[in-house]
């Protein structure tokens, strides 16, 4: 099996080498980039399977990279990687188009798993992201100007899945716990991701506009 090709975007050289070392041979890091322009050039040149992108960078963070790449090449997958715990950063990056979010303390093996999942078109929710989403989609309060109410609510099953992820369960463990297939869990999580990206719930738009991203 050919290894997945990855571009690593982070303004800290030290951190890039750290991630490269952690990932080892599990994926092929075809290029590194230290800012938005370098990232756009590298992605254009290498056409990677997955781009690992830092949320915070000088001259526009991961959100800027994602939006500019997606304008031309919407089929590029992004995984956001950050030390930031602030919900508005995370939500804004997801709404810009990232398919997942993990914190930089993630182990090399878990990161490789997450990259594989993203390359398959699935979504990657860390416990923290699941917590943010449950918070943002808390029952009650929806947008009054909602065009599509379905987007503003999580189904009870989706809520259940997110709760287990927030509790530290891996997808496989969630599946076993709920007696569902891993595929079904992935479908639920992807559906939550879609709602997260498209919903006009005011909690989400507030978080997003805090970062001047809509």
């Amino acid at each position: 099996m050919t290894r997945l090709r990855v571009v690593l975007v982070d303004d800290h050289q030290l951190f890039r080498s750290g991630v490269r070392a952690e990932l080892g041979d599990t994926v092929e890091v075809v290029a590194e980039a230290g800012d938005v322009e370098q990232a756009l050039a590298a992605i254009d040149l290498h056409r990677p399977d997955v781009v690992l992108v830092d949320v915070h960078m000088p001259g526009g963070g991961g959100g800027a990279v994602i939006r500019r790449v997606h304008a031309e090449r919407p089929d590029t997958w992004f995984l956001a990687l950050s030390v930031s715990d602030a919900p508005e950063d995370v939500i804004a990056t997801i709404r810009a188009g990232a398919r997942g979010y993990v914190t930089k303390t993630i182990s090399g093996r878990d990161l490789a798993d997450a990259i594989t999942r993203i390359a398959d078109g699935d979504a990657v929710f860390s416990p923290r992201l699941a917590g943010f989403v449950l918070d943002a989609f808390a029952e009650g309060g929806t947008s009054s100007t909602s065009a599509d109410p379905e987007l503003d609510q999580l189904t009870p099953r989706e809520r259940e899945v997110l709760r287990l992820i927030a509790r530290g369960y891996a997808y496989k463990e969630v599946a076993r716990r709920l007696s569902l297939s891993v595929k079904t869990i992935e479908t639920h999580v992807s559906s939550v991701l879609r709602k997260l990206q498209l919903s006009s719930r005011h909690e989400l738009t507030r978080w997003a506009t805090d970062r001047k991203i809509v």
Partner: protein
Amino acid sequence: MAATGHSLTRRPRQGRLVAGVCAGLEPAVGVPVGLIRFAFLLGGLAGGVGVFGYLAAVVLLPEADGAVAPTRRRDPIELAALISIIIGGFLLCRSSGLWLGDVVGFPGAVAAAGVALVWGRPEGRAAVLGPVGPLRVAVGVTLVTLGAAAFLAATGDIGVLGRSLVPVGVVVAGLSLVAGPAVGRLFEALRAERRERIRSEERAEVSAHLHDSVLQTLALIQVRSGDDREVQRLARRQERELRAWLQGRDPAGSVETVAELVEAIAAEVEDDHAVRVEVVTVGDAPLDDRLRALGLAGREAMLNAAHHAGVDSIDAYLEVEQDLVTLFVRDRGKGFDLEAVDPKRRGLTESVHGRMERAGGRAEVRTAPGEGTEVELAVTRHP
């Protein structure tokens, strides 16, 4: 009051116009400095009483070391009352004969109001040359001009004004053409200097903080570089501390909500046992006895995982709902056979189950050998 070295009435070095009497009186009298100056000016017009009062104050009041504290903002009604008092005093002076005559008195009062307006300090700002609202200046200058015009009109010399206005205007225009750009640059330089000072103060504060925290930790990490667990513990603690600082929280601040309690307990367990405790919280609620019991039972569960599970990471998840608060503590470690727990090892039974039952909640432990352990704790919010 004087015997106790009453420190308020001093003449400040900053924010003074003449000798700092009015600025010094501001905090003591509790009236904006502009109004005090206005009162002194009126007093000066009213037969020179204000001038003598001012000179006496210069002699009597000591000079202060620093600037005065800014005064609080006044509401409009209070201001109106103060202005009425001053005008009342003014009229009293007039009727009691301490008066230079209407020709000087009234135009002088109008002009004095204008001066007070221009030189007053908006919102307790210190510097005399500080940013004065353009509106204040415009209104102030208009009042001074009106006062002067009224004086000249009253003394019959208004014709002089018309004749001299043109040459004066020409001179003023010429001067501003010559000196304007230079004055503008001077103000720009002052502003730049001020910005730079603020920036360098901020930099000093950040670097002081980094020095006390991050650099110390890095030094400790170098010393302990052989001891992985210790290095990790130091790094985690520093991370928590720095995050709290960046978010403007006081890391040693008081714990008032259940989410804060769980975070604090997790931090304590991390510190004492060199494990990572990943805390995720959804919702929050103010602490009460039941939630405190929930947190302490959670602490017991975390300690249990840290001691027996053989893992380096524990997940804690707190969810506050409308009427239920649930805390999950989970590890992926060894797990154990619930039936076979030594009755003497009362940790889980007593501290977790007992505590939760007394608080009117419940505890559930899910585990099996090799399967990790999850402790679920729940209390209702409203009994």
